[in-house]
């Protein structure tokens, strides 16, 4: 399928992204894909407990937005947050360990797959109540504004989330106070099992509402990491410059069901197949080829990633379950859970 690039050097010469970053973005997409496919396999072996929400097919959004961030920028994710967490550099082992509810997990099993958090990587939590984190991201941005710090808070959520009250409150709040927060709607066409159009008054659940907050209407191809990256970069720049928030709708599609329990039988025939033709990893592999990257460089990335995910899996399988001491730690800041003297 991949076409030979006609004018690789000319393309590269005008490139605002550059080979190094592009290879990093490819590697990260491949890593997320491999880690999540592994997570799916581990479900089937009953080694992943609880629920889990994969981003298979949506990797370009996570990678493009993360690639444009600086260290210190903050990510606020949903239950569908593995991709965004990995994209900030959190090791696969830590994520899989949490899904497998082992002691080596990111939160040692206390949070679970829906609450991935790695403060040291700027992942300020994954939130499982729809909409809750949009106002929270505003608060982080308010702190940056107040303290004169130039980090950006980036908040990811789905199309279905645009219909809950917290979305509206957060958007207005951020706009009025011109907060350095970027709201990213991953429109994957479904709110769980229901087509988003069945429950939403406008065609573009986020973009068609931007004007209600005095914001620009932005809809982008969420399956092309480069255009995601460019859009992200522009939005962060505006935010850092004190020009306020952005709301960006990324068109994308999830290849798997909503959660592990979902066989996704509600899809119209052919829909998945059509979107798989626009698989972000496929698109990006072709892009690399267009830019003249050698096949063996690409293969090396793929192989290294596969080996890394295998190693992470083995480490998780070998890890012990969390110890019971953890139960009563960190309810309060003193480390404990005492509500009485």
């Amino acid at each position: 399928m991949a076409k030979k690039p006609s004018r690789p050097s000319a393309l590269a010469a005008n490139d605002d992204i550059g080979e190094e970053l592009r290879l990093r973005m490819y590697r990260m997409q491949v890593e997320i894909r491999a880690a999540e496919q592994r997570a799916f396999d581990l479900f089937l072996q009953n080694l992943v407990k609880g629920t889990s929400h994969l981003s298979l097919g949506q990797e370009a959004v996570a990678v493009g937005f993360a690639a444009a961030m600086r260290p210190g920028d903050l990510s606020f994710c949903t239950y569908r947050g593995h991709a965004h967490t990995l994209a900030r550099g959190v090791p696969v082992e830590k994520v899989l360990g949490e899904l497998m509810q082992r002691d080596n997990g990111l939160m040692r099993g206390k949070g679970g797959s829906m609450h991935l958090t790695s403060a040291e990587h700027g992942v300020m939590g994954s939130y499982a109540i729809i909409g809750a984190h949009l106002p929270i991201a505003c608060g982080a941005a308010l702190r940056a504004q107040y303290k004169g710090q130039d980090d950006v808070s980036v908040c990811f959520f789905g199309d279905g989330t645009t219909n809950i009250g917290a979305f509206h409150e957060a958007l207005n709040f951020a706009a009025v106070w011109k907060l350095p927060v970027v709201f990213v709607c991953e429109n994957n066409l479904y709110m769980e099992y229901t087509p988003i159009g069945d429950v939403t008054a406008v065609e573009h659940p986020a973009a068609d509402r931007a004007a209600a907050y005095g914001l620009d209407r932005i809809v982008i191809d969420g399956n092309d990491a480069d255009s995601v990256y460019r859009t992200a970069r522009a939005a962060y720049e505006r935010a850092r410059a004190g020009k306020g928030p952005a709301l960006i709708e990324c068109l994308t599609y999830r290849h798997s069901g909503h959660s592990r329990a979902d066989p996704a039988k509600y899809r119209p025939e052919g829909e998945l197949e059509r979107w798989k033709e626009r698989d972000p990893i496929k698109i990006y592999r072709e892009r690399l080829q267009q830019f003249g990257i050698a096949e063996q460089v690409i293969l090396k990335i793929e192989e290294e990633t596969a080996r890394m995910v295998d190693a992470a899996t083995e480490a998780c399988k070998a890890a012990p379950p969390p110890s019971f001491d953890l139960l009563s730690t960190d309810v309060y800041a003193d480390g404990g859970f005492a509500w009485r003297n």
Partner: protein
Amino acid sequence: MAELTYRDAVARGIAQEMARDPDVIFFGEDVAKPGGVFKATVGLYEQFGPKRVRDTPISEQAIMGAAMGAAMTGLKPIAEIMFSDFFAVCFDYIANEFPKSRYMSNGQLKCPLVVRTGNGAGSRFGAQHSQSVENWCMMIPGLKVVAPSNPRDVIGLMAAAVRDPDPVIFFEHKSLYPVKGEVPDGEIVDTLGTAAIVRPGKDASILALALMVPRALEAAERLKAEHGIDCEVIDVRSLVPLDTQTILGSIARTHRVFTVEENPRLCGWGAEIVSIIADEAFYDLDGPPVRITTPHIPLPAADVLEDAVLPTVQRITETVRRSLQS
């Protein structure tokens, strides 16, 4: 008689009422075409059609408000809030609107609706999808609150809730959905406000709700078999109205009481019932009333951790034994 899962009993209970009364409608997120995320409402859309069984946006406030407006003006809505934890995003309706409009209007307005929700732990979903929040509702004047522990009660209490002229919060326990039980054929209609003595006994009363009922029963069997302690087990079933007659009657016979709650420790239904008993049956008590609860912590996700914090058969057994033998 048929064997039915608790999950299927939900659909059957709703179907029974929808077939009987055309004013009953049902809506919530992914409840119609998809049949619910817990598959507890499969078939209702097919049976009753898109006018009566509807998928909503992720708008819990709109769901609750719409149920209330419909109830005020002549329908009998059943609304689903997928996980009871999400009561927190529409709590204004639960705490301030449903239960107060009749009173504030001096009886001019009514609010005959049912909110059904998946409650409780055991699915390793973590702190925001596993809570037991019956006390969030019990504490609000003007609501009725039920929490069935078995398929038969699901159907019977659902019917009672739908036919009730007041707002009823109906807690289904997520961990009970796959559990089977015997269910009689034909219409089943139960009565709100009635507890059930599910195991008679003379040495102590154990009060439990929902998932804790089978655990209390198993603990009672163990206590009998291993320690010769004969416990009465009461399935409280309905928190409001509360069947204090059955509860106080039991204490009058056994003179000891234990509550088994899945909620975190503070201000649960156990605290309320213990306080009633301590006040009204003080002189019946031969020893302290003891609450067995989840500790006062958010719920951990990991299986081993979650299993360790909910009241277990082991913990119930040990607590009762130690308390009675001390």
